[in-house]
């Protein structure tokens, strides 16, 4: 039994990471405390340093990676935003840093529980992104992340995302792989493109003047990220061969014959699966598609999974203020040119860790069925209940806003 945070730490330990610069933030801190303990006790041979901020932490992790070491770091929410500048910088250095983000809603108002505005803010940086549903998946994804990031066809940094509280502090059974087996899967990092040594001077991250040079470097990153789709499949197959667990770019649940599909990410997908199961018991052909790889965006797999379905509801646990659900926009753009595109509904749910109850899922599924009849997807809607509204009224009263 491990928490998501402990599972992340185990992934880092098994990957035999050389260097771990850190900075504490809730709900990520348990990861770095666990690693600090192992290093202090000598069970892990890594250099560990607490930096003065996430900005410095990301810089140190990136520069160590640019020196040729296997580096790891982790953060959450405000910390991610504080280091944000360096996400673009480190990705531009083309170094295979693996970073865990433990999702947490963004201030203001400051909060602790999860949604995905933090990690999705980083979706254009060049970091690849794997989003996890279970603690086991967190551990396994870290191993896969190093393989993917260090592949010469890719060489981009990568996020492994897990939800604060719902995974980070939640204990569940996790199989910890054997270190020798991990070594077979994940060989030593030996960079040919970015390192610092006396015999081969290298000026990394030079300034560029002129749009054609800049376009070249940026678009090469995009192509490397696109390459990662195919490389991911290889890594996924090899992982399954070695460890017996399969993690495709997207995961279908009761999806093959489904007419009505929920699209979700991260730990709340488990709740969605339960709702699908309940709907099936009511005779509704529901299914769920969980997006696991968000960067690069698995366009083809997504189209294959939901093309031809009657209705799809994207449940965004995030909000792009002034536009709506981020994943809804991304999925809509994938489907626009498809001949048999499903009706696409948009829901915002689970912001700041707000629970999504079976009633709320039922509402969403009903909306899909109604929409299919009327051929009207409606507008994006926040999933919020009358009880929550009443409770909010009580709080406002206490705040003197009555």
């Amino acid at each position, binding site marked *: 039994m491990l928490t998501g945070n402990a599972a992340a730490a185990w992934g880092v330990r098994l990957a035999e990471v*050389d*260097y771990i*610069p850190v900075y504490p933030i809730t709900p990520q801190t348990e990861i770095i405390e666990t690693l600090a303990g192992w290093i202090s006790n000598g069970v892990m*041979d*890594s*250099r560990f*340093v607490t*930096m*003065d*901020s996430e*900005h*410095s*932490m990301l*810089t*140190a*992790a*990136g*520069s*160590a*990676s*640019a*020196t*040729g*070491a296997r*580096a790891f770091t982790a953060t959450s929410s405000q910390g991610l935003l504080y280091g944000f*500048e*360096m996400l673009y*910088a480190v990705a531009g*250095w083309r170094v295979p840093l693996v970073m865990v983000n433990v999702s947490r809603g963004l201030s203001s108002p400051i909060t602790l529980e999860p949604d995905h505005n933090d990690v999705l803010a980083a979706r254009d940086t060049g970091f690849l992104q794997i989003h996890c549903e279970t603690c086991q998946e967190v551990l396994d994804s870290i191993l896969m992340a190093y393989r993917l990031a260090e592949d010469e066809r890719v060489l981009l940094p990568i996020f492994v995302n897990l939800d604060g509280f719902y995974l980070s502090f939640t204990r569940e059974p996790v199989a910890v792989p054997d270190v020798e087996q991990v070594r077979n899967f994940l060989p*030593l990092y030996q960079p040919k493109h970015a390192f*610092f*040594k*006396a*015999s081969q*001077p*290298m*000026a*990394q*991250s*030079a*300034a*560029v*003047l002129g749009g054609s*040079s800049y376009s070249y470097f940026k678009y090469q990153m995009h192509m490397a990220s696109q390459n990662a789709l195919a490389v991911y499949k290889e890594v996924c197959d090899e992982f399954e061969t070695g460890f017996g667990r399969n993690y495709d770019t997207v995961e279908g649940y009761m999806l093959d014959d489904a007419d009505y599909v929920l699209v979700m990410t991260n730990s709340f997908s488990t709740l969605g699966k339960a709702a699908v199961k309940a709907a099936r018991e009511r005779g509704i052909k529901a299914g769920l598609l969980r997006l696991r790889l968000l960067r690069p965006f698995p366009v083809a797999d997504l189209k294959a999974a939901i093309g031809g379905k009657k209705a799809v509801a994207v449940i965004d646990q995030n909000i792009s203020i002034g536009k709506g659900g981020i994943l809804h926009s991304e999925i809509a753009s994938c489907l626009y040119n498809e001949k048999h595109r499903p009706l696409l509904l948009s829901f915002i749910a689970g912001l700041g860790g707000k629970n999504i109850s079976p009633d709320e899922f039922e509402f969403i599924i009903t909306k899909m069925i109604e929409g299919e009849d009327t051929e009207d997807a409606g507008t994006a809607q926040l999933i919020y209940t009358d009880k929550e509204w009443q409770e909010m009224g009580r709080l406002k009263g206490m705040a003197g806003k009555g």
Partner: protein
Amino acid sequence: MAGNGAIKRDGGKGVKDMVMERIKSIKDIPPEENMLPGTPTCAGCGGLLALRHCMKALGRKIVIVNAAGCFTLLTIYPYTPFKNSWLYTAMACAPAGAQGIRDALDILIKKGRLDPDENLKVVVLTGDGSAYDMSLSSTSGAINRNLDFYYICYDNEAYGNTGVQWSGATPFASKTGTTPPGMLSPIGAELAKKDLFAIWNSHKPPYLATISPAHPVDLINKFKKAEQYKGPKLFIALSPCPPGWGIDPSYTVKLAKLAVDTGVWALKEAVFGNLKHTVVPKRFKPVEEYLKVQGRFAHLFKPVRQEGALNKIQEGVDEYWNRHKLLL
């Protein structure tokens, strides 16, 4: 290494080992150029002159970690003036970049994945905007962690790369793009220059010094002295900036000398916090001689002489040297 073979490390305790050779005159400056010409810095750049001498002292087995500033433009793809490695980071975090590289080199050597002969000295290079303002946090962290690195700040007393605006290093009464002398504020910058030396020195780093591009012998000897210490070795170079200071490019060195001769720029060093002045003028020239030749202070003389401001500047300089009992 700058041609000095027998320098022993002190194992972090900072015990002086006087094996290093000091140079005595300009003729002794190592002839090798470790930074080649053709960079896009302005003609007559004081910071580049200081850096050129630093590079001679540091040798080629180094990696420079650069923060956003004028010297970002030293390496513009596909050109570099250096024979050594380089990493551009961002404005706030060059010392953190140095931390990552130092730690990575150490662990790779320890794990046998990097030949110790491939080791590099790690050198942070920043302007004053980064050093005095934005990267104070990351610098303080690096000094506190006793990171084994060099830090060179080329201090041209303004955000030069953006076209000369006020920074924490801008001296009182200087004209910059964001401190324009006007009807209501005829003085220009109203705040005093931060004392970065004192801020850094409060950490008691192994070695800390001010340097000047006009005093290359003093500069190189300071680097040689610093070499014996493991831990932070920090240098602030007052760097006349022809466009920023409103001087002819040919006047850079003259002005750097005047800064020292008038007492505006004290050449000093501190070893684990213990301060010593390395160049003390026998007779201090009036500060006005330094101010009146610079466009950025022209408003103190024309159209109306700003007597109060001029006195305040002179008094500040006198107070400094009095405090250190060096004003004769």
